[in-house]
């Protein structure tokens, strides 16, 4: 099992009288740069602390024009982390490839981070969430095509000696020759997040990448997705390695179950009711029709629809409790899911610094060692997971 500390870097200060979506059209006059200065630095501290606490890695991600996550450029964050840590893997989960024109920019920036960090980058690549296609006015009907072509170009840029010409449908480059090249051979480990699109699962299985389950669904949705991923690998002629699966889940640890809920619950609801609205816009053509049906099956269980704490617990939308409870729940779920990567989301919504730090410490000292003992693993070779 590999343990990652994942940060979303949310904006915790939306005014109480604002009840619109947090994405795309949420007026940016609501962003207070003074708050920004404080929280960016606090959130980075929380990620850096993961190394001292014994995590295997840290994660940042990419979202634009929203209050849910303030990292339109995750590579900037990864670069900071590359200098402020020495051991942990740094996972960018991931660059939204269609938003980078040309995609060789991803190859370049990832190579920089990999060189600076001494070969610790995990290169996540995403199609980009629905809202990003509104934010950048990029055609969602071309999302998958662009992602595929950009991915192919980036891999070639990393593994084929340059300069070479690349003439695709969307990207036409006469000279592909990125300096620097990544340290890891053949290239950094690649992670692909997904919410159940069949094309993504097949793509991950075919390329032997790792699939990260995007959170905020009932645990049964993850169980189904991961089973499908294992099937997809079998179809490709091999058995999926647990390290090819990652479960991202909000976690909060306190002395007792009651104390944990008391400290955490209101911040969880800020996340659900103030930051999630607007995330699930699915622009036309973004998902193929054959995948829509699959994704729609999970839609009713989307976290936006949560009404009660009982539902949160029943569906394992968050793992909240004493160290014993958290250990028990994670142990059971990780075994069922067969995932080899646990991506813990420790800061969530308005959860303040002190509560976040205490939870991280408690998890690291009282939960993680027990889970490590239960789920030993072989270190993944860089570049390929299986």
């Amino acid at each position, binding site marked *: 099992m590999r343990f990652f500390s994942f940060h979303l870097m949310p904006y915790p200060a939306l005014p109480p009288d604002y009840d619109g979506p947090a994405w795309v059209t949420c007026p940016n006059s609501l962003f207070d740069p003074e708050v920004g200065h404080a929280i960016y630095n606090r959130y980075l501290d929380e990620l850096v602390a993961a190394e001292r606490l014994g995590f295997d890695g840290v994660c940042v991600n990419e979202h634009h024009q929203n209050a849910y996550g303030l990292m339109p450029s995750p590579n900037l964050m990864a670069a900071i982390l590359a200098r402020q840590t020495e051991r942990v893997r740094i996972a960018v989960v991931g660059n939204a490839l269609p938003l980078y024109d040309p995609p060789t920019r991803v190859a370049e920036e990832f190579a920089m981070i990999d060189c600076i960090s001494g070969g610790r980058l995990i290169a996540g690549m995403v199609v980009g969430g629905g809202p990003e296609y509104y934010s950048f*006015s990029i055609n969602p009907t071309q999302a998958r095509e662009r992602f595929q072509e950009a991915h192919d170009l980036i891999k070639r840029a990393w593994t084929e000696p340059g300069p070479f010409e690349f003439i695709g449908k969307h990207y036409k480059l006469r000279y592909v020759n990125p300096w620097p090249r990544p340290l890891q051979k053949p290239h950094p480990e690649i992670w692909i997040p997904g919410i159940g699109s069949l094309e993504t699962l097949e793509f991950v299985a075919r390329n032997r990448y790792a699939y990260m389950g995007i959170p905020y669904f009932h645990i049964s949705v993850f169980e189904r997705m991961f089973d499908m991923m294992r099937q997809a690998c079998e179809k490709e002629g091999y058995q999926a390695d647990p390290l090819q699966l990652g479960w991202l889940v909000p976690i909060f640890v306190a002395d007792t179950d009651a104390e944990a809920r008391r400290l955490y619950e209101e911040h969880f609801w800020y996340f659900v009711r103030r930051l999630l609205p607007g995330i699930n816009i699915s622009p*036309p053509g973004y998902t193929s*029709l054959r995948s829509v049906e699959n994704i*729609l099956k999970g839609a009713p269980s989307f976290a936006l629809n949560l009404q009660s704490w009982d539902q949160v617990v029943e569906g394992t939308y968050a793992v909240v409790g004493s160290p014993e409870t958290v250990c028990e729940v994670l142990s059971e779920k990780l075994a069922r899911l067969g995932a080899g990567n646990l991506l813990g989301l420790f800061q969530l919504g308005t959860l303040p610094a002190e509560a976040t730090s205490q939870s991280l410490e408690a998890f690291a000292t009282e939960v993680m060692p027990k889970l490590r003992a239960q789920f030993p693993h072989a270190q993944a070779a860089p570049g390929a997971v299986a």
Partner: protein
Amino acid sequence: MRRELLDCEVGRIELRRGGSGPPLVYLHSASGEGEGLEFLDLLSDRAEVLAPMFPGFGSSEGIEAIDDIEDAAFHLLDLWDRLGLSAPAVVGLSLGGWMAAELATRWPERVGKLVLVNPAGLYIPGAEVKEIFGRPLDELAADLFADQAHPVAQLMRQMASATQPGTEVPFELVKPVLAALSATAKLAWDPYLHDPKLHRRLGRVRSDTLVVHGERDGLIPRAHAEAYAAAIPRARLVDVPGAAHLVPLEKPRELAELVAAHLAG
């Protein structure tokens, strides 16, 4: 109107055909209207009406071969050739009007009399077209219809409430709507609902053109219809009171009469 299937360059196209007389092609909007459309029945009294479904709509194939509005224009030209059409009359609504204009600027000799109803396709600063993508269907219905009691407006509201959590929407019902939106997005996402080069080319249109504006259109400001009428050499503008964006659905008789008069005149 009889339903037919025709093999075209991009794939198999579904179309409706009815009536007799000089040929008239109807190009539908992003709503994909055509089946059971009273407006087409009225037109077929005086013309042979051909109403093709654009790729991605109905059971028409070939949307994979279409990336942008120029591809759409070339598809229509191919369709014209396969239907044996020389210079038919063309009536286009909204998206269909935009396509008709793209065809008429490139091949003016292939379009006879032209009727553009609330045509899309232009960008006019200060007269922005409202968003059609990502909006709840009930909100969209309010912009598209003057009379909210119209059956299609009611259906859109039903579908909007059907996507609330807890309700089961049969996927078969959702599929055609998604396909139509996706096909529209291919043409109309970026840049939004317009072709930056179209305006300067409208002077090439040789057809006698009637531009029809639904007086209560909440989607496309009147400035767009005015711009079309001003830029096309032999064009005039007329308003239909009591109609919003989807004029053929709301005022089929009035529109059919306007079209008939235009074809005869």
